[in-house]
């Protein structure tokens, strides 16, 4: 069957190759070979900047009730307010500028997404490493917990946590962390188990290096690639879930809406044809999630050692 392999090789004869660039810059170059990933990355940078600089970009502070004028409520996109300000994307029932609401909502969404994915990554990675390194009882207990957790869908875990903790953005973050840590733990453990059997870990043990050193200096770096990929995807999932939970009225409050909450407030006006309150925040949500997924998809291809040619 080895004859079939020739298809991959190009016909170029061996030539003098330039000095090999570092692995990182190689990886970055590989990443941007995909136009979709490049577009996703650029969009993501723009989105992050928009969210970060929202207070300076937004025409209005949508959380400051003093700035809202109920008389400007439910204006169509492009309408002008009494004071001459243009609501490019219209206003909601409170007279809140949708564009400003979206920019501020993005901040909440991104914060919830990054915070929960990051915390879940730390907890899950630690648990996974610990399970792989300790083995025996510790491993059994941790992995049983992981299996238990993973046999229920995230939204159910999140609902359960919110039923216990009550509503609110912070509780949503906690619920997401509890719902997502198990994915990391499982992946890290299986990667670390493979790594643990390799000679260099054995050698480190023979040298009687302390356990934490083997864990963090030897096992951890090898598990980072999958963790980064999962974390990227989790940010997108978490943003979607936060929006969903807020839409259900379990997350952000009405006075400080996130994207999901904005969509939710527009829901009741949808049937009367006031589409913009729900439509535009939804687009923002969609673009954010798609660009993160594009980046994550590509990261998985680039970082997966099995795909390296």
């Amino acid at each position: 069957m080895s004859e079939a392999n020739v298809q991959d090789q190009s016909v170029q004869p061996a030539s003098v190759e330039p000095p090999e660039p570092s692995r990182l810059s190689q990886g970055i170059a590989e990443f941007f070979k995909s136009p979709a990933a490049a577009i996703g990355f650029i969009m993501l940078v723009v989105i992050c900047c928009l969210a970060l600089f929202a207070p300076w970009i937004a025409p209005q502070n949508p959380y400051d009730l003093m700035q809202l004028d109920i008389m400007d409520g439910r204006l169509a996109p492009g309408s002008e307010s009494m004071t001459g300000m243009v609501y490019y994307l219209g206003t909601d029932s409170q007279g809140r500028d949708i564009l400003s609401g979206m920019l501020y909502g993005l901040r909440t969404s991104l914060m919830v997404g990054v915070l929960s994915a990051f915390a879940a990554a730390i907890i899950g990675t630690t648990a996974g490493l610990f399970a792989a390194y300790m083995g025996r009882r510790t491993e059994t207990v941790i992995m049983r917990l992981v299996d238990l957790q993973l046999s229920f869908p995230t939204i159910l875990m999140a609902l359960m946590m919110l039923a216990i903790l009550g509503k609110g953005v912070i509780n949503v973050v906690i619920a997401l962390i509890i719902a997502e840590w198990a994915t990391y733990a499982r992946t890290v453990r299986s990667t670390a188990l493979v790594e643990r059997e390799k000679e260099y870990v054995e050698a480190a043990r023979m040298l009687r290096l302390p356990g934490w050193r083997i864990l963090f200096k030897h096992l951890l770096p090898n598990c980072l690639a999958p963790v980064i990929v999962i974390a990227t995807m989790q940010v997108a999932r978490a943003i979607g879930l936060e929006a969903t939970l807020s839409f259900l009225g379990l997350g952000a409050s009405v006075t400080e809406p996130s994207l999901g909450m904005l969509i939710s407030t527009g829901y009741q006006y949808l049937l009367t044809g006031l589409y913009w309150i729900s439509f535009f925040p939804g687009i923002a949500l969609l673009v954010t999630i798609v660009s993160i997924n594009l980046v994550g998809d590509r990261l998985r291809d680039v970082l997966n050692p099995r795909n390296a040619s």
Partner: protein
Amino acid sequence: MVTSIIRRLFQAIFVIVAMTIIVFIGVNVIGNPVDILINPDANQAERARVIAHYGLDQPIWKQYLMFLQGLLHGDFGDSFVYGRPALGLILERLPATLELAITALGIALVVGLPLGLYAGLYPKRLSSKLIMSGSILGFSLPTFWVGLMLIMVFSVELGWLPTNGRGPTMEFLGVQWSFLTGEGLRHLLLPAFNLALFKTSLILRLTRAGVQEVLPQDYIKFARAKGVRESRIIGVHVFKNLMIPVVTIIGLEFGSLIAFSVVTESIFAWPGMGKLIIDSINLLDRPVIVAYLMMMVMLFVALNFIIDICYTILDPRVRLDAKA
């Protein structure tokens, strides 16, 4: 085979017990039921009466045993809102949710399997690439927002389909179903499609990945070398191998469909369990929440159990390992 079933049965019981402890601790220890149960304006005597009534003055392990005892009898207490047994409330709404989830699963399979098969068999075609891009969109689109857009387009703009409730139902096997009446079917269409969207993408991608994994295998080439027709190679050799991951996913995703129906039911005012649980969380209707959570736990454990058994039947390698 029998021993492996018994072993799985024990695992299932273990999971249920573990979840009862988690739910119990969550609701009774982390959350304070006294705050939830008692009207803040109530006087001392009233408070004491309620605490005694719910056994909240008992030691925690005793409370847990009481909780378990109630569980075994299907008694989760009365809903604060409706004043009726919580379990009954949920069971009443179960058929609506099941109907929605089954329809959505059907849509996901009917759309996802053939498209995934096609995209896997002809990966280079433009149509396949379009299908795959579409599936990324299906993954990324937030379900609830799609639901709103569906309402906007098909109900508000086009006025084709209703958006609210189940419509008229008809009794079959002692339960009310929407799909048996034309109007009910029209009510079912949008929510089911909405719920199916994400799973369709999932099944599609899984099918395609499976096809691409099986096609280059030697046994496919050998089947061709035997002179077996292409239709049989795809229909039997490829498909049977595909069914193993797909059945696993179907089982798990059916549970997840039921869980995710909370979103769709809220949007389309579908009177199922999902809508009930969201209302209950908002109103802090604790008996209903607990009953719902325990129902879901049981459901998932049962589903996992069934998947395991299906898996054993489908994959001869697993079957024989278990026998050995």
